[in-house]
């Protein structure tokens, strides 16, 4: 009974992905048919330029935002974690992090309009950075705990310059946190719809914006294709991350 419940929960979480894959391959899947008449790659092979440009934008934004917000979060958290005003910085960081991205976007849209950034690739990029950076900061703020700061101090008393401590201690020790932050900020950007649609003024179409457009047009099969494309990188990241997590868990239990 317990196992049945457990597997039902697991199946429930896996079902949306299986369904999206099936829907993206389906044709003429009308009510009340439980399964599609036939499966075809037609929707995948017939994708138009708009899809590829959306894919390119999404990739560009997610990779750039992932990289820059991780870097900015890491560097600023490293110093602010030892600053006397650290707690205030932490309190303030929670505000943009907790704010609804779409309302945030409406509030700052004016500044993007007057600086001619609204509807521009750079504008959407900056807006996403503003959204992701506090998140990265919060993540690294927790990472730079008393132990890591003590390790940094120890390295200094052993004679390491700031640069040496950064490259020989902080970066290698923070490898996992950096990877995690990149993955998370990549996903925030990759999943974003509200901010991109408001600041992009509908002119910068990412995969999520395109998916919403397909849903609005009742173009179910193409919406499924773009939805599959949105889900693929996070699934891949999840799989890689699980492999890594389980490998380190095993290593720790072996050495404990």
């Amino acid at each position, binding site marked *: 009974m317990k196992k049945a419940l457990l597997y039902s929960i697991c199946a429930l979480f896996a079902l949306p992905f299986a369904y999206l894959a099936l829907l993206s391959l389906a044709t003429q899947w009308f009510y009340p048919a439980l399964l599609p008449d036939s499966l075809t790659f037609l929707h995948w092979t017939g994708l138009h330029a708009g899809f590829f440009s959306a894919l390119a934008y999404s990739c560009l934004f997610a990779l750039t935002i992932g990289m820059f917000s991780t870097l900015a979060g890491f560097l600023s958290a490293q110093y602010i974690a030892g600053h006397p005003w650290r707690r205030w910085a932490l309190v303030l960081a929670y505000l943009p992090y907790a704010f609804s991205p779409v309302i945030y976007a409406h509030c700052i849209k004016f500044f993007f309009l007057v600086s001619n950034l609204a509807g521009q690739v750079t504008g959407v990029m900056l807006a996403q950075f503003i959204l992701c950076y506090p998140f990265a900061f919060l993540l690294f703020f927790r990472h730079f705990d008393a132990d890591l700061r003590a390790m940094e101090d120890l390295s200094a008393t*052993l*004679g390491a310059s700031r640069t040496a401590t950064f490259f020989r201690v902080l970066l290698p020790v923070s490898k996992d946190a950096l990877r995690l932050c990149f993955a998370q900020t990549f996903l925030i950007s990759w999943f974003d719809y509200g901010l991109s649609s408001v600041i992009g003024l509908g002119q910068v179409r990412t995969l999520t914006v395109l998916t919403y457009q397909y849903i609005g047009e009742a173009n179910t099969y193409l919406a499924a294709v773009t939805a599959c494309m949105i889900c693929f990188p996070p699934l891949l990241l999840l799989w890689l991350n699980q492999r890594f997590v389980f490998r380190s868990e095993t290593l720790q239990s072996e050495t404990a």
Partner: protein
Amino acid sequence: MKLLSVQKLHKSFAGKTILSSVSFELEAHKTLAVLGKSGCGKTSLLKMIAGLLDGSGEIQLNGNFVHTLPPQQRGIVYLYQEALLFPHLNVFENIAFGLRLRKMPEPALREKVDGMLEDLGLTTHARKMPTQLSGGQKQRVAFGRALIIEPRLLLLDEPFGNLDVETRANMQDFFKKMAQQQQITAMLVTHDLKEAVRMGDQLGYLDAGNLHIFDHLRDFIADPRTGMQAESAFWQSIQDAV
């Protein structure tokens, strides 16, 4: 010959005085053990000497002012209660860390690290990662990592506080042996009375930011704040009862 001279070291934070005009001197190749309760300013004192905490006052090492120098240039190593081994480096590389910073040629480095590993009794553990070591072994590596760069002064902040009683005693013996063998000048802060007496050539007591250095062990024993009399009386009463 005096190695360390500290004059009027003062530190306050948020209106509260942490260290109040602390002055003392330490002879070369000696260990000063400072006893003090939690929150008395022990860690702040060591961190200021190491250059990890700002404040006012003068610090001289071998007659040279060092209080304006960054920690990297003081030649003072500060060791924490935790071993803080770099988790991405194995035992050999942890010990070699300071030498690599100084760009020592590889053959000389290997020879020196191998020698240190032998002194530490860790030769067979050279390739192990920190997670594969026991608490005592980690602490030994931490000592090795500090000693190999031949610091002018070693600061120890309750270095054996996290170890069990037996390992702690072993580590104290080990430190005494190494201190003698390598002519180390060290300053140790602890809240453990026995540890202070056992390890210190010179004894001090820190209370509410004021440091008192004792000229002789008998003065230390005579001062009721150190708890030495109460401790002796307790054991005496046990012995009398038996």
